[in-house]
């Protein structure tokens, strides 16, 4: 009998759980690495499970969709742990990923938090790698967005779903995309007031491509639930509206909003101010967590929404040998798509090197993927980041939050020092050089540096912001402890 294929899965969200579960089902030995301390990712983030939870006593499902899918994936996951075929490494992050000469993959692991329970620094080698690292809210800078109380829409939701904590009592949500709706719904159910949802798009984009959303009725039903919540809680949903400035001395106190024309430019006279705001949740779509894939030099492309995503074949294989990708890293498209991609990736990853993948093994998932990708394209077309968002910037608006680099400094570097991509901006202004390594400002810095280009210059600039050989901050000692190079 041949030795089991060892599949490493990074991420325990919808894609990672599905990949792990299906790789197990196809006989692989699986290691699943996740930064959080319990499985679920962002989509199925839930309250802390009680240790020694009895079977049948289920994790808290408050505010969740597709919870049945989670429980079924989780059952397979837990069964793998019990059988010894799945090693689950929670609270662990990969800080470097490399391909060895024999095409196996080596991952350098570190503890996600030095406080509390601590995973030891270690090295893991696997035959196959499934990267299912997901995405986080994409941001464009707004004057005052660095005030405490201003956070990502995802943070507002994560606090509620993960901990039952409301980030404020009087919340304004702003950005673009359907994701603002469930966040508003979560806030309302938790007892907070959503004073407004400012959606920068005019939503006419949906009408241009009605076939795609109609092919995914579940999304329509979910959407209808959110609209019902908006009506029931009297939440104003303002289309073609942006926050032009966030006000406050030491924390957010008020916001100015305005209507915009088709280009995203503010319509004069439409400005109004919302007072007594204690929290703002921002999100203009999502940024993929792609750096572990770009470390392998895999082929990427710019998706319809301006996100850099990994190229994959129909079985989720990237251009890198033995490296697969599933979920948001191949294109922002939601949890149902991520589960289908993860399932396909898990199957493909578990195949021996001589075995050819069969479409019939994952026929249902391939159909789901095709329908949901079409839905995602329609969604991205309807919810583009407004072209002229930078028109609302003040000279002293912080763009890079870590290094406190302002819009004025970036524009000066562009115009006077010819820093026309994010990398040159980084070396001249330090934007993108701080703790987050450009995760938050990389998109905006690229927009500013390339003067709103939407093609090659922008794509190249964004791709450069993903070059993070050390993907998260680690103590120097862990780098010093590395062996020379990952050979056999």
């Amino acid at each position, binding site marked *: 009998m041949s030795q089991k294929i060892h599949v490493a899965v990074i991420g325990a969200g919808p894609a990672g759980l599905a990949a792990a579960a299906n790789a197990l089902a196809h006989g692989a030995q699986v290691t699943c690495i996740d930064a959080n301390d319990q499985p679920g990712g962002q989509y199925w983030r839930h309250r802390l499970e009680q240790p020694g939870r009895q079977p049948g006593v289920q994790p808290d499902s408050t505010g969740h969709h597709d919870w049945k899918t989670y429980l079924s994936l989780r059952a397979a996951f837990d069964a793998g742990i019990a059988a010894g075929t799945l090693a689950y490494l929670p609270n662990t992050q990969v800080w470097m990923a490399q391909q060895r000469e024999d095409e196996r993959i080596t991952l350098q692991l570190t503890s996600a938090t030095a406080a509390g329970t601590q995973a030891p620094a270690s090295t893991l080698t696997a035959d196959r790698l499934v990267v299912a690292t997901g995405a986080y809210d994409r941001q464009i800078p707004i004057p005052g967005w660095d005030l405490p109380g201003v956070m990502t829409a995802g943070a507002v939701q994560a606090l509620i779903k993960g901990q039952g904590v409301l980030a404020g009592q009087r919340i304004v949500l702003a950005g673009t995309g359907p994701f603002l709706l469930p966040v508003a719904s979560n806030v309302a159910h938790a007892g907070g007031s959503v004073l407004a949802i400012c959606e920068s798009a005019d939503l006419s984009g949906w009408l241009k491509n009605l076939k795609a959303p109609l092919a995914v009725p579940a999304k329509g039903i979910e959407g209808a639930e959110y609209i019902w919540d908006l009506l029931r809680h009297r939440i104003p949903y303002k289309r073609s509206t942006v926050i032009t400035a966030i006000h406050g001395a030491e924390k957010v106190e008020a916001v100015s909003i305005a209507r915009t024309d088709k280009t995203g430019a503010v319509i004069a006279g439409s400005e109004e101010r919302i007072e007594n705001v204690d929290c703002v949740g921002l999100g203009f779509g999502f940024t993929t967590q792609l750096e572990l894939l770009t470390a392998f030099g895999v082929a990427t492309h710019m998706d319809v929404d301006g996100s850099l995503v990994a190229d994959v074949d129909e079985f989720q294989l990237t251009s890198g040998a033995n490296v697969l990708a599933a979920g948001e890293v191949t294109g922002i498209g939601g949890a149902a798509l991520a589960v289908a991609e993860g399932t396909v990736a898990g199957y493909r990853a578990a195949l021996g090197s001589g075995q050819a993948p069969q479409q019939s093994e994952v026929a249902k998932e391939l159909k789901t993927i095709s329908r949901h990708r079409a839905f995602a394209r329609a969604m991205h077309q309807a919810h583009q980041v407004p072209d002229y968002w930078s028109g609302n910037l003040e000279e002293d608006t912080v763009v890079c939050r870590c290094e406190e680099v302002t819009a004025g400094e970036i524009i000066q570097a562009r115009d006077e020092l010819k820093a026309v991509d994010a990398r040159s901006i980084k070396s001249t202004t330090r934007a993108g050089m701080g703790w*987050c390594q450009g995760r938050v400002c990389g998109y905006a810095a690229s927009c500013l540096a390339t003067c709103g280009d939407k093609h090659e210059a922008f794509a190249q600039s964004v791709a450069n912001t993903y070059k993070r050989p050390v993907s998260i901050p680690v103590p120097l000692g862990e780098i010093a402890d590395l062996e020379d190079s990952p050979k056999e």
Partner: protein
Amino acid sequence: MKPVVKSVENPITISVDDAQLTVEAGTTVAGALIAHGITAWRSTRKNERPRGLFCGIGACFDCLVSIDGQPNQRACMVRVCEGQQVDTETAKERP
């Protein structure tokens, strides 16, 4: 504005600088602070501006705080535990 504190079901005590806070077991340090109406626990290096939680999921590193003597921990990633010592950072104290 009044702090957003719901009744604490499973109380534990942590120290934040010199103060004792009763917080909900199972929350993160960031969640516990926000539940007490504390929105900032760090000031920036250059302009000494207050910062707290931003991405909430470990990507942005804006919520860094010292926890049990370990500096620069992401408050959104670390769960509270009984007797935990959280030290907020200010620019002046930083070496």
